[in-house]
């Protein structure tokens, strides 16, 4: 008997998708005889998630994230492989299983448009067989956490996107699920609403010890919430571990920004060995150094140069992720030490040039 909340073992999902070329003739042909393509949406994925963990599911559009989530929530049958969620096989859709989980989709609503959210909540309370006391307590807690008591009695259609998302979250969590699937919960929300929802997810997770799987294209969601990420690309699991480790593995260097005193010119040759100058703007340098020697180089810079300002940072996570999305598996296959340093800086420069063109 395992203690894992979610166990996924060699999960595979293939679809048969009808294909036809454009044009009337192709349409007629496909009417008579359809041809199908096999799409491998999820290919041999395995992982496990412990109670209380928050895990970020990341990957480009069409990577297989939502397909995997739907299999975990019991909406899809896998082609092969094994899934256990809170001790249940999801696609059997056992009532106890459905009471244990919740799936909140950022782009789909379960609220009724023309009536206040409170009416929907009452029905959910009945569907999940909550006692009046449980219902009241759960509702009050969620409403307080999201600071949304004034939204309860307004018809849903009169709410803004962010307000509606708050209502969706309450609807999804009213029955206090232990396993929560959040598919793009911050889609289309403004910055402060995003951070509010992130805080809420974190609060809920701490209070109830619920496991959360989150998919999002906003890296800020992932960095704020998920100590662990699972990266899926073309249906394969490419990486499972800490976000910082992922960045370190893919980008084994740090960026150092140095401000020098104006009265002395420092030639590139005066810099320590191993340092690469990415940019020089007057007295400010942007340097790239191998992660392993960064502390030594920093000490050397401080000792030998007239440093007035020094900032060390990791390459931006968006750049790391973008690199993976574009180059995929090849990046992660190579042993980490041999990875060529990814040229994030150049990439960013190119991007900004593109914009100015």
């Amino acid at each position, binding site marked *: 008997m395992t203690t894992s909340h979610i166990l996924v073992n060699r999960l595979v999902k293939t*679809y*048969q998708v009808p294909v036809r070329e454009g044009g009337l003739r192709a349409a007629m042909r496909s009417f008579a005889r359809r041809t199908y393509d096999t799409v491998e949406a999820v290919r041999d994925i395995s992982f496990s998630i412990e109670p209380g963990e928050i895990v970020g599911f990341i990957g480009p559009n069409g990577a297989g994230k939502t*397909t995997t989530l*739907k299999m975990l*929530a*019991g*909406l*899809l*049958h896998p082609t092969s492989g094994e899934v256990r969620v809170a001790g249940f096989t999801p*696609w059997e*859709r056992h*009532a*106890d299983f*459905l*009471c244990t*989980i*919740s*799936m909140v*989709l950022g782009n*789909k609503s*379960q609220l*009724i448009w*023309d*009536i206040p959210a409170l*009416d*929907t909540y*009452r*029905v959910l*309370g*009945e*569907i*999940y*067989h909550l006692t009046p006391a449980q219902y009241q307590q759960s509702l009050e807690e969620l409403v307080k956490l999201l600071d949304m008591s004034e939204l309860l009695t307004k018809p849903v259609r009169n709410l803004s996107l962010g307000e509606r998302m708050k209502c969706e979250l309450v609807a999804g969590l009213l029955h206090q699920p232990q396993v929560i699937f959040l598919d793009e919960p911050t889609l289309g929300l403004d910055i402060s609403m995003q951070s509010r929802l992130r805080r809420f997810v974190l609060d809920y997770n701490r209070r109830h010890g619920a496991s959360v799987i989150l998919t999002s294209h906003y890296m800020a969601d992932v960095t704020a919430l998920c100590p662990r990420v699972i990266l899926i690309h073309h249906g394969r699991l490419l990486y499972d571990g800490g976000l910082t480790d992922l960045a370190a593995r893919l980008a084994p260097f740090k960026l150092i920004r140095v401000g020098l005193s104006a009265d002395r010119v420092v030639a590139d040759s005066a810099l320590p060995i191993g340092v690469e100058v990415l940019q020089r703007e007057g007295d400010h340098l942007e340097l790239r150094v191998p992660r392993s020697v960064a502390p030594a180089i920093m000490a050397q810079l401080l000792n030998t140069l007239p440093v007035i300002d020094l900032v060390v940072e990791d390459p931006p996570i968006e750049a790391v992720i973008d690199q993976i999305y574009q180059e995929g598996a090849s990046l992660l296959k190579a042993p980490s030490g041999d990875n060529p340093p990814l040229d994030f800086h150049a990439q960013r420069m190119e991007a900004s040039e593109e914009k100015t063109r």
Partner: protein
Amino acid sequence: MNHRGGWALIKRSWASWLQYRSFFFVLAFGWMIPPLIYLFVWSTASEPAPIAGMTPPQFVAYYLVLILVNQLTFAQTNWTVGDIIRMGSLNSWLLKPMSPLYNALASEVAGKVVMMAFVVPVSIGLAIVLRPELNATLSQGVFFFIALGGAWLLRFFWGLWLACLAFWATRADALLALQDALIFLLAGVVAPVALLPGVLQTIARVLPFYYMVGFPVEALTGQIASSEVATGFVIQAAWLIVAIVIYRLVWRSGLKRYSAIGG
């Protein structure tokens, strides 16, 4: 079975449908028009002499009852089930610890209540003006209510299995339109089934459509004898069982397909 959740859903649907009451009133008015036309056609036609033993006030009674029965048995939910399957809204039904059948039943029951708020007063108004003749016995009244319940269930489940074909075909609702056309012809709307020519009448009394509308009406207005009512109940029950069995088969294999290819 999650009856508690189902009942709450009915109440909620009712509340939300009350928001659209004027829409439903217009819809209900639209559905009343064809029977009303045939009410006037047949009562005018039977003025010189009764047709098949039916006088104008009897035609008025027949069609006023038919208007009520047609409204009460019309399964408007089935028209939305296809969309719910196609657009992926079914997902949120499937994530709840409750049979999705409750969602369909809830809007069905809620819709009936809202529409009756319009149809009953209008029918009473028409009855005052048009003076129907209805001499129903107590037993005919009892038969009527049983047959009405059976008719609603039959029309609901028959439409539901057709609607569930949306799991395979994108526009399965065309079949619902066909069902409505057959009801119009064979269930006693265009003319009481008793007035249909020989073969057509036999066909009508065998197929399920008559048992969705015409049967309860005739059971009340006395177009069919008590012995025929008994046979009618047997045939109605048989079709109801067939409809439920087909619905379950279609639903199960449809859901299997849905969960294989995704919403």
